[in-house]
């Protein structure tokens, strides 16, 4: 569908029409006629028929939630996950602190140090889920695709912190090495077929 008709703001040129509402009856006779028409048109029975038909069709739309779950979209922004590198299993997070900086509700806190190999290492990383608004900026800004939004939306727990300690968010090492880590297609991650969609930087101007 073309967007043309939505972008045309010249009111009056489009094919708008006003809704056809009957005039309200004024005289007693007109009122009576309307009552009679509504009474004998059998609209009430149409209503009865419709619900009865639906009952016999038995086309039930209920999702019995704890037993059945609807799939959520891959770009849904639920509890964060910290990813590891494939094969080596090292943590992807390089401690750059961008997520901490960009977080608009100030809920990410991290501590880093320089380790023996003079590489930066994350010592503390936590997200205060009481403050997090799940905007997804942290995942979007992460240069290493280390922090992503997972699909875990069932957040009932005794402690909010249960979800957001670094160890809980981090993929276990064995999972990453054996190649079972889910490369998350969600917010902040590279979308599929990104290669084909990449365009050359226009240099013409």
């Amino acid at each position, binding site marked *: 569908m073309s967007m043309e008709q939505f972008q045309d703001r010249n009111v009056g040129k489009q094919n708008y029409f006003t809704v056809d509402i009957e005039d309200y009856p004024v005289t007693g006779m007109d009122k009576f006629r309307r*009552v009679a028409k509504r009474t004998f048109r059998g609209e*009430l029975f149409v*209503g*009865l028929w*419709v*619900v*009865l038909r*639906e*009952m016999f069709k*038995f*086309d*039930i*739309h*209920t999702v*019995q939630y704890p037993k059945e779950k609807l799939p959520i979209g891959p770009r849904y922004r639920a509890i964060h996950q910290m990813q590891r590198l494939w094969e080596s299993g090292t943590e992807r997070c390089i401690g750059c602190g961008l997520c901490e900086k960009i977080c608009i509700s100030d809920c990410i806190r991290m501590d880093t140090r320089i380790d023996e190999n003079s590489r930066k290492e994350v010592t503390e990383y936590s997200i205060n889920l009481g403050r997090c608004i799940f905007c997804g900026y942290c995942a979007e800004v992460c240069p290493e695709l280390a922090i992503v939004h997972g699909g875990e939306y069932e957040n009932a727990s005794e402690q909010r912190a249960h979800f957001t300690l670094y160890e809980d968010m981090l993929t276990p090492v064995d999972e990453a090495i054996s190649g079972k880590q889910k490369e998350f297609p969600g917010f902040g991650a590279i979308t599929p077929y990104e290669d084909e969609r990449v365009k050359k930087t226009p240099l013409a101007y």
Partner: protein
Amino acid sequence: MDVAFIIETIIKIVVLLLVFSALAGFGTYFERKVLAFMQRRLGPMHVGPYGLLQIAADGVKLFTKEDIIPQNVVAPIFKIAPVITAATAFMAAAAIPFLPEFTLFGYTVRPIIADVNIGVLYVVGVMAIGLYGPLLGGMASANKWSLISAARAASVFISYEVVTGLALLSPIMLVGSLSLIDMNNYQSDSWMVWSQPVAFVLFVIAAFAETGRTPFHLIANDHEIIDGFGTEYSGMRWGLFFIGEYANMFFISFLTALIFLGGFGDGSFLGALALLGKVAFLFFFFLWTRAAWPDVRPDQLMWLCWKVLMPIAILNIVVTGFVVMFKG
């Protein structure tokens, strides 16, 4: 009066109370299921197979909840109001023949507690006293929603009492008796609904108002006045209102089936089954309309009663009178 008769009557009363209290519970289950299916939902599913034990869960909840008497209510009236609703509903059942006569171990059982010769008058009258449940409960609750509901209850019940009474007059004129068993026997050739279709429609419409069911559900209209007269109630007192409402639905269904739809016919086993089938259908109809139809406004309800239904009912009586007079 001999002892056997008294014992028999007491047994009948106990059976009736137990059966219809249980049926009221099942009524809530059926209502939730039927409404759910009509709205493409599943209804209660988790407690027991297909949610069947939901009734037990609800019962346990109602019985064990704290019975709250809020501040500022008129406590004695507040406490007695639900009892009035439930009691009048069951009292009305005394004159209703629920099944034809049958013989059990060589003893003839008549499944009617008292075949009084003013059966219909008694049933309709006692059901009308049920008005005092919502009215007193609503007025004693010290709650504005309840007060509105009480006002509506008074206006609706009193208005539709008129329609019920007038609608029943013409069948009574034809039968010449107020006993429900006579009414049933009168219809052995053809059902009353064929000779009195207008009275039947009027009575069914009035029955919806009397029981406060959906097209006329404005006494406890959840979406505008919370639960109306039931807003301040909790626990089993609220449950009594509910039992009363559902028992009333069943009794009105029995009444409609007996007066207009042939009742139990000749009193055979098949006839008894037919009566139960008719009652089941009428009860289903109560639920069916709830899924299909919107509610009307209180003023529309009054308009319908006084300006439409009552004149039609009176015309019906006049025409019936002429027919009875000239045809014998």
